[in-house]
Each structure stands twice: as structure tokens, then as C-alpha cells.
């Protein structure tokens, strides 16, 4: 075996006596290094400016150490507590110690708002108790309950126990309208507080409708572009691309001017008697407005991949089908259409993924029932400052997209996609 291998190696030498394999990998290594060198700047930019921050931020969805970091004394004591028995004097003492220290270091606000997310109303409980904590004397249990009755509630302590875990599914549960209890189980929130799941479903629904509407509107346009003489089709292609050169904000506000109650479209409806002056259509600040403007904005992303695929289909296929006796419709449906599926697949997934994370347009024209999940993520980022929940919702959205992508791959096949 060894001998034969040696013999084989001996045969495969280059003219200067170096084994061929070694020489080959050496020469390939150089060209690979050069290729890698070319992409390095972009790779660095993407990893530092994009991938890394996203990963760091997404960890906030499952990791929040505010409590553990500031409640140094209470956290280990809470870990020992079973969450059912009456809180002990030892626990109260640790709490008071932490409150005093938080007041001195002016960090009480951070912990108070973190606690407030777990149990609403606990912000004032923490801030007011901290103000008086320095004067409290043993037994701490009684004196603390005297300051605020709520300290006697088992629920308050349970909430603190849940919050004391830094690595926690609390935010993920909340993103899916559930509550994570001290016992480690998930329960659904009460009906009137469930909003996220509804919003996720609405986001998927809007994205799907935008994809279908884009397909219905875009397919004939792509067909026209692919089959017109090159001079006319280039001109039309510029018209398709024109929106790309206009700011997204401008296009959205243009739709406001078009769709609003006293807008262009409604005026036309009144002129043609489709609507009366008093009873105009509500086309904006609702789902309809979001759908109309998103379909318009995302239409080029549907047209271009389909167009580029159609461009590669020679007219002889349809001619061949017709020469064999197929009617125009049969030739289209059985011969032409199947060959455009890669373009449809690419366009659909492109539009869907862009639509699912659409933000500015629904924020401006969506109103109440036209907002999408990204608007809520934005709300938690900038208004409520609950970054952990925002990260958890973003994570859920990412998982949904990856899941749909996986399904798409199973059903249609990613290789079956052609962007141009």
C-alpha cells in the first residue's frame, strides 16, 4: 500500500521535482489569497459595521443583567429562595442594603424601570423606598412593609426573582404575548394585552398581499419589456427604474397627497360619481394605504428579476409550441410560464423579505391597522426604551424569515431562483 502510494507520488512530479499536488495547492493558494484580499475590505466593513452589532443587539433579547449588576446583595439570596415560601428577614436586609447603595450611586432609576417592565407600578415602589432606605432599621421586614405595603406581597418578590436572572426568556415570551413566571412556566397574557402575535400575523399578511399584487401587476409589465423592440423597452425600463432614484420618503408622501380624503384620487372619484363629496373613501392611514404604497414602492423589485429571466427565453419556444398546434394560451401557460418561474421565485422572495421589514411607509400612511411589526420594534427602541423587548421581537422576526426561506427552499428550491 505504502509502496504503491510512493510510486504514485513519484509519478506525479513537476519538471523541477516537486510533487504535483504540492505545487498545485501552492499555486492555487496564491490565487485564493489574492481573491480573498479583494473582498477583505468589504468583509471587514460588514462584520464590524453590520453582523457584529446585530448579534450584540440580538443578545439583549435573551440577556439583561441590570438587576444582577446593581442588586449585588439580593440576587444570590433570591436565587436560594423557592419563590413560594414567605420572604425571610435575610432577603429584606439584602434588599435594603442594595437600595441604600443604589440611592447613593444614583443607579436606582435603572433598576426601577427594569422592574417596572416585569410588574407595572413597581417604579415608584423602588424609587420612593430607596429614598427612605437609609433611615430604616432592623427588623427590616416590618419597617420596609411599613414604608410600602407592596413589599409584603409575594408577587413583588416573585417578580424580582424572575428579573434577577440575567439570561432569561422573559422578553422572547413577551414578544409572543406570553408571560414567564417565577415557576419557570409560560402563560398567555390576557386577551386585551395580546398585540404582538396579531401584529406578526398582520405583517405576514400585508407582505403576502404585496407579493401577490406585485406579481399580478408586474408580470405583464415584465412581459411587455422583454418583448418590445429594444429601443422602446429601454425607455420603459427607465420608467420602471425611475422610482429607485427618488427618495422612499418622497414616494410615500406623494401617496399621501394622492390617497388622502381631499386628495387627487378621491377628487377624481367625486368627479366621476364613484363617491359623493361627503362620503369619500378612506384610502390612507389604514391597511389600504399601506398596501397601495408598499406595492408601488416594491414593484420594481418584482419586475426586474422576472424581466431578466424572460429576456433569456428565446421566442422559438413559443413558436415551436404553436407550430405543434398549441393555442396562444396553451403555449403561454405550458411553455412560457414554467420557464419564468425562477424569475417569479426571485422576485417574490425579494419583495417578501423587503416587505416584511418595511418601516417608513407603514409609519407614515399606516395609521392604526396598517402598522407593521417593524413600527413596534421602532416604538420600543425610541419611545419606551425597552431595547430588550425590541431585540426579542427582531429576533423572532428573523427566525420567521429564515423559516419561510427554508420552506421556500424545500418547495421551490433556492437553485431555482434567478436574479438576472
Amino acid at each position, binding site marked *: 500500500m505504502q509502496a504503491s502510494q510512493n510510486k504514485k507520488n513519484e509519478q506525479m512530479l513537476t519538471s523541477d521535482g516537486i510533487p504535483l499536488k504540492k505545487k498545485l495547492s501552492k499555486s492555487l493558494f496564491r490565487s485564493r489569497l489574492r481573491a480573498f484580499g479583494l473582498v477583505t475590505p468589504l468583509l471587514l466593513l460588514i462584520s464590524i459595521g453590520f453582523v457584529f452589532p446585530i448579534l450584540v443587539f440580538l443578545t439583549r433579547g435573551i440577556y439583561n443583567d441590570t438587576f444582577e449588576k446593581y442588586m449585588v446583595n439580593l440576587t444570590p439570596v433570591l436565587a436560594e429562595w423557592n419563590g413560594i415560601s414567605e420572604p425571610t428577614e435575610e432577603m429584606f436586609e439584602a434588599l435594603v442594603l442594595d437600595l441604600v447603595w443604589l440611592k447613593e450611586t444614583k443607579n436606582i432609576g435603572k433598576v426601577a424601570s427594569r422592574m417596572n417592565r416585569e410588574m407595572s407600578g413597581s417604579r415608584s415602589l423602588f424609587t420612593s423606598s430607596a429614598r427612605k432606605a437609609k433611615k430604616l432599621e432592623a427588623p427590616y421586614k416590618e419597617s420596609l412593609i411599613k414604608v410600602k405595603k407592596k413589599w409584603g406581597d409575594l408577587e413583588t418578590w416573585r417578580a424580582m426573582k424572575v428579573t434577577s436572572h440575567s439570561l432569561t426568556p422573559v422578553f422572547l415570551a413577551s414578544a409572543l404575548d406570553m408571560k414567564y413566571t417565577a415557576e419557570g412556566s409560560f402563560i398567555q397574557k390576557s386577551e386585551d394585552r395580546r398585540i404582538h402575535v396579531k401584529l406578526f400575523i398582520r405583517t405576514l399578511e400585508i407582505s403576502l398581499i404585496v407579493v401577490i399584487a406585485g406579481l399580478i401587476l408586474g408580470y405583464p409589465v415584465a412581459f411587455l419589456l422583454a418583448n418590445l423592440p429594444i429601443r422602446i423597452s429601454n425607455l420603459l425600463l427607465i420608467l420602471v427604474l425611475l422610482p429607485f432614484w427618488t427618495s422612499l420618503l418622497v414616494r410615500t408622501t406623494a401617496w399621501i397627497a394622492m390617497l388622502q380624503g381631499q386628495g387627487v384620487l378621491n377628487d377624481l372619484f367625486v368627479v366621476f360619481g364613484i363617491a359623493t363629496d361627503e362620503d369619500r373613501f378612506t384610502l390612507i392611514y389604514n391597511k389600504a394605504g399601506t398596501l397601495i404604497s408598499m406595492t408601488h414602492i416594491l414593484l420594481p423589485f418584482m419586475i426586474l428579476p422576472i424581466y431578466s429571466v424572460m429576456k433569456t427565453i*428565446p421566442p*422559438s*419556444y413559443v*413558436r*415551436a*409550441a*404553436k*407550430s*405543434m*398546434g*398549441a*393555442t*396562444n394560451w*396553451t*403555449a403561454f401557460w*405550458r*411553455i412560457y410560464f*414554467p*420557464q419564468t418561474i425562477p424569475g417569479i421565485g426571485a422576485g417574490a422572495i425579494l419583495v417578501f423579505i423587503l416587505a416584511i421589514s418595511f418601516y417608513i411607509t407603514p409609519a407614515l400612511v399606516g395609521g392604526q391597522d396598517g402598522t407593521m411589526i417593524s413600527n413596534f420594534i421602532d416604538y420600543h427602541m425610541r419611545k419606551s426604551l425597552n431595547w430588550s423587548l425590541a431585540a426579542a421581537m427582531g429576533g423572532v422576526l428573523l427566525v420567521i424569515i429564515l423559516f419561510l426561506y427554508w420552506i421556500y427552499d424545500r418547495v421551490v428550491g433556492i437553485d431555482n431562483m434567478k436574479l438576472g
Partner: protein
Amino acid sequence: MANNSFVKFENVQKSYDGETLVVKDLNLEIPKGEFLTMLGPSGSGKTTCLMMLAGFETATQGIISLGGNPINNIPPHKRGIGMVFQNYALFPHMTVYENLSFPLEVRKLPKRIREEKIKRALDMVQMNEFGNRRPAQLSGGQQQRIALARSLVFEPELVLMDEPLGALDKQLREHMQYEIKHLHEKLGVTVVYVTHDQTEALTMSDRVAVFNDGVIQQLASPPNLYEKPENAFVAQFIGENNKIIAQVVDVKGSVVTAKTLKGNLLKSKKVNCDTVGSKTTLSIRPERINVGVKGENTSEAEVLELIYIGDHIRCRMNVEGDENFIVKIPNAKKVSNLKIGLKTKVSWATDDCRALDRLA
């Protein structure tokens, strides 16, 4: 229905832009069962004629009839004409079997009959084992056969072929030429074949229509086309040809006497040259010329180049001031006498030299 005009073009004209005619006043009758080739350089209007017959282009003027009925206003899918395309146009998303099944499905034939016909068509081109392959998994020659089988599977009376062998390499092309020819003989189907390859046209056809400039220059059987070209274009386009420019000095019956630029008097057959005094192109095939001997027509010659081809020697000579005068000399012993620079004589029979129109 007259048997000798299964397909008929009557005064057909075609223009794309309303300014120039791509096809000028075409009249052509094709009898049933004939293999007719439309031969011509690109842009000569041959493919346009084929597309008008298939129904993908409309005739600007004139009538095209099939089996005695005008088909100008019948859409392509109702004409029942089989067609083989230049790049085969096999549907890439279907298997070979599905490709062949398609024309039968649109005719709503029952499954049992479909299977039978597909099997017969695949047998015909010896491709029965490839039914489950996709076109991309076949070689060029195999794709060509499938395209052929697909155009014949629904048993059309007329099959059009638009340069079907253009994409194949030389050897395969020659092989397929015989196969298509034999298939035509076996099935008796009428074939209209378009090509720009003159060898292909001569090999396969019953008759060849040579197109140039939107006009049929000559419509004849292959031997007649080669032996008796009617004008300078056909003589030049079909096979190799030596041209001597001369002035007509005498016309007696079918014999024309013409004076070359060097003052030599040559006799040739009258084909379509004008009266005495006009210029003419004398056309002689390279293989009809004798070297070193005197004949009916003799001319001085100087050997300029010798190219060894194998079965013959290609000899470039200066004859009557033309430095591209080619003589094909069969590879025999006397060839060794020829040397570059040798001054000798060339001669040819009057019957082999044809006085044609003056070539621009």
C-alpha cells in the same frame, strides 16, 4: 387539389419597414412529398419565406396556399405544419417524452394512442432509451434527433426545417443529412428546408431554390444547379467557379464567342449574356480544366501556387490576367511535373464554359 402544388406561393411579397422588400414577388410550387431546399446567403429572404409559410410572419402581398387552400389568415397553430428550429427549441422544463407528448396532448389524443405514437417517433430516430432525459442532458446530435421526432410525431404532411444542422459539428452534420434524407424517403412527407450550406442543399434535396436579394435566382435539381447555373450568382454560390471577364464578339446559335482582356477568343455556351459588344462572365468549374494540353479553348497559364489536398491538387494559376484561377488536378503521377512559376497551357470544352451575365 392538384398534386403538383401542395404548397403554393403566388406573387408573395414581404416588407418589414414599408420601404424595402425582403421578398420580392415570390412564385413557388412545391409538389407533395418533395424535399425542397431554400438556399441563400443570410438576408436573402429564405427564412422569411419559411416563417410566412409557418404563419409567424404575414405576407404583405400575395397568397400562400397549402393543399389548395389559402392559409394567409389561418393562425400557425391551426396550420398543422411540423417545424424544426435552428436551436431545436426543445422545451427545457420537460423531458424528452413530455416534449414529444406535447403536440399530441394539445390535439387531445387519448393516452394510449399518444404512447404508441411517441414510441414510434422515438424508434424512428433511435432514441427510445432517452425518454426520461431532459434536453440539457442530451448531446447536440441527440437534441437534433428529438427535435426531428417532435416535428414528425403528430404526422404532419408538411415539415419545415430552419437550418436545423447549423449548430452541429461537421461530421455529425453530414451524418444527420443522410438520416433526414432517409427519413424523408421513408415517410414521404413534404419537407421545406432552409440552409445557407450549399453542400447540404445539394446532398439532401429533390429541388433547390437559390435565393438572393429576395428573389429566387434559380429553382432546379441539384445536378442541374451545379452543371447549369443560370446566372453568375448561382454559379458562384454553388461550388467553386472560375470567372473570366470577356466581351461578346459573336453569337451563333447556342455558342458565344467572346474576347478576353488579353485578346484571346474563347467559345462558350450561351446562357444569359446579352448581344454582341456587351460584357459577360465566362464560368468554368475548376475540375473541368485540363492542364498542359490543347483543347477547344486554350489559354496561356502560369502556376502561382500548389496546395496539396490529398485526393487532388489545388493549383492557383494566372489565366487571362486572373490570378485566382483555380484548377483542381486529380492526384495522379503527372502532377509532379507542376512547379511554381511553370508556364503552361490550360484548356476546356466549350460545353463546360458558360457565358453568364456580367457580375458586378
